[in-house]
């Protein structure tokens, strides 16, 4: 077959692999699989300059180096050239690549949205200018489809936030109409009884009701404090995101929580992540508090660890406490839902955790069987 026909078919195949999904990762996966397979490439990754930071948006295979090591200057030079460039792999380039590369060439394709697609070809021959020129419009089209994916995901995120805010409003209404009303009714009854006791000249009897009034007031105070705490939970934004050393952060959290010495907390070495530090601190504190609340005896243990799942991490906080029955598992993530009658608990801890995880683009789940302990897992994009 002539080279020209092969080139036309190859460009057609690549063009048709663009935009198969509105999900950013799925869009990349589909295109990059075809690109890597047909062109005999070993790796590909996309970096974007965003808010004066370099953000690694995608990589196959999964990245190893922290994204900060990919310098802005290095990326900006490729963007400024505004055309594809093929450069031999040397020590300097291999140091800034997020996946291991040895030998061959790196080809950089500038794309829309301050992004650059890099691929690694292990072949000994450099790519010809003609090949780069032919691929340039295809890769730019791919870049535009990624822009559409980003916009779609942002729209989805905003919609989800709106839905959550609406749900929060409903929850507040429920708290005011039901949860706050219940202690208020108690107080009303107790005051009536006190009045009756005083009218009946029985002050000793009236005094008996006072602790119950204080208890109801404390409950109301706790609920109102909880509402305020949850409503003040600020939205996590890229502007608040920074590198967070999770082991240091958890050490700090452990100084804040109250626990018996008999309860062991084992923390595995954790990775550095990009996140809102204050929110991550709240997240771990709530999960650890939640686990500690369930534990009482010697031999009780909490484990904190993670798995690297390629494009994201999955963290866990596991305990060997009494566990949570299947029937209650959905309920625990709802605001002001408590599984016991302990008036000192606000019932918002896990709702806060859920919100922080979602704000960082992750997902929270619970695995538990009654009597077998509970494990909370949450994902966090790299």
């Amino acid at each position, binding site marked *: *077959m002539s080279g020209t*026909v*092969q080139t036309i*078919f*190859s460009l*057609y*195949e690549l063009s*048709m*692999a663009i935009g198969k999904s509105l999900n950013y990762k799925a869009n990349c*996966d589909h295109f990059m*699989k*075809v690109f*890597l*397979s*047909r*062109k*005999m*490439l*070993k*790796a590909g990754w996309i970096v974007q300059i965003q808010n004066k930071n370099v953000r690694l948006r995608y990589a*196959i*295979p*999964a990245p*190893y180096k922290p994204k900060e090591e990919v310098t802005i200057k290095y990326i900006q030079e490729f963007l400024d050239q505004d055309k594809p460039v093929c450069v031999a792999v040397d020590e300097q380039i291999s140091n800034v690549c997020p*996946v*291991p590369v*040895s030998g061959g060439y790196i080809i950089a394709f500038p794309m829309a949205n301050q992004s650059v697609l890099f691929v*690694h070809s*292990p*072949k000994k021959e450099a790519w010809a200018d003609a090949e780069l020129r032919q691929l340039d419009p295809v890769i730019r089209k791919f870049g535009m489809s990624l822009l559409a994916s980003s916009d779609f995901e942002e729209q989805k995120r905003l919609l989800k936030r709106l839905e959550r805010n609406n749900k929060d409003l409903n929850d507040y209404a429920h708290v005011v109409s039901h949860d706050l009303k219940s202690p208020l009714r108690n107080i009303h009854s107790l005051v009536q009884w006190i009045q009756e006791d005083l009218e009946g000249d029985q002050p000793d009897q009236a005094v008996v009701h006072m602790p119950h009034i204080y208890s109801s007031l404390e409950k109301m105070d706790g609920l109102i404090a909880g509402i305020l705490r949850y409503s003040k939970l600020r939205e996590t934004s890229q502007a608040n995101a920074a590198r967070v050393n999770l082991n240091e952060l958890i050490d700090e959290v452990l100084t804040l929580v109250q626990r018996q010495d008999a309860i062991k907390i084992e923390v595995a070495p954790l990775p550095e992540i990009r996140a809102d530090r204050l929110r991550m601190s709240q997240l771990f504190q709530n999960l650890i508090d939640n686990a500690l609340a369930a534990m009482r005896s010697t031999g009780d243990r909490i484990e904190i660890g993670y*798995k*690297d*799942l*390629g*494009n994201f991490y*999955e963290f866990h906080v596991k305990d060997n406490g009494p566990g949570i029955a299947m029937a209650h598992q959905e309920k625990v993530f709802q605001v002001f839902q408590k599984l016991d009658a302990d008036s000192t608990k606000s019932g918002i801890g896990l709702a806060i955790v859920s919100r922080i995880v979602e704000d960082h683009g992750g997902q929270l789940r619970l695995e538990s069987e009654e009597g077998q302990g509970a494990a909370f897992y949450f994902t966090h994009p790299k």
Partner: protein
Amino acid sequence: MIFTNPNPKEIAAAMQQEATPDSLFVVMVAENTGADIDEFMAALNETSCQYIGGLFPKLIFDNALIDQGVVVTRLQGLQKIHIARGLAEGNYNLEKHPVALGSDYCVFTLVDGLASGISGFLSELYRSYGSEIRYFGGGAGSLSLQQAPCLFSREGFLQDAAIYCLLNQSTHLGVKHGWEKLGGPFVATKTTANVVEEINWRPAFEVYREVVEADYGASFDSQPFFDIAKGYPFGMVREGTECVVRDPIAVNDDGHLICVGEVPENTFLDVLKGKNQELIAAAEQAAMIAADQAKQPAAALVIDCISRVLFLDDNFQEEVQAVTKALQQKGVQPTMRGALTLGEISSFGDGFIEFFNKTTVVGLFE
């Protein structure tokens, strides 16, 4: 080890005798053996051996084709055995290896060769273990092409799954098929996973039969589909290397071609044709490529496609002998063991991991 009349306890005892802490035993069972896999697993689970296994249409031991029996090979440097369940749905998360691995590591994998989603699984495997290590493996399953449990390990007897093991062992691979272009290029304009519905915007079978019948000299109406199609697979073109073969095994009532392995939509396809001597020479070449890289291999494993047997028929024995001879000539000592599979898996640092059909993959483990 070969067991022509397998007794699970005898096999378990033999494995236990050879076991070391980092050994992985690959237990290959020919489907016609009629073995009770549960009984097998019960016996193997009583040992301290780490093992994985599969049911395959046929096996290879030395230069012989085995229709009934069990062949066991021991690989070294086992780090961990993993299972991915639910390939069709893709509901699995493969843990990324915490540090970048080099060419002295290999992932050996067995997949349910009739599962859909194999390509997605292999992409995730590549994502998890990186581009520098070696990948080697094949598809288990029955020649009847009926999907059923076909993989086993201590985790159970599995279907729609993959078992993969990380080995700290240098592995040298040779991959060749020898099929050559007959017609094309075409574009698979409509596909769903492993079903090619349209080629060049026409019903796939209509286009395929025009090319094939012109060469074969007889109509598909006169013979069962696969009797002709086994000699005319598709090739998915890759630049600067052999194409990836896709085997059309059946045509459905809508004129869609059902292949082993996925064909992405808009893939650029050729129709291929095989000649006995070229296929045998390609298998021999695969053995030589692997042997040229190896110094003192401790194990030799061949993963060869069952449809090469169906095409080469009695001449397949020549292919096995050619591979064995090539390895011996290059001074490879270990006896060659292997399986005839439903799809072959390989990547050796030259590009993305692929699921092949009608291909010979020779692996030498040092």
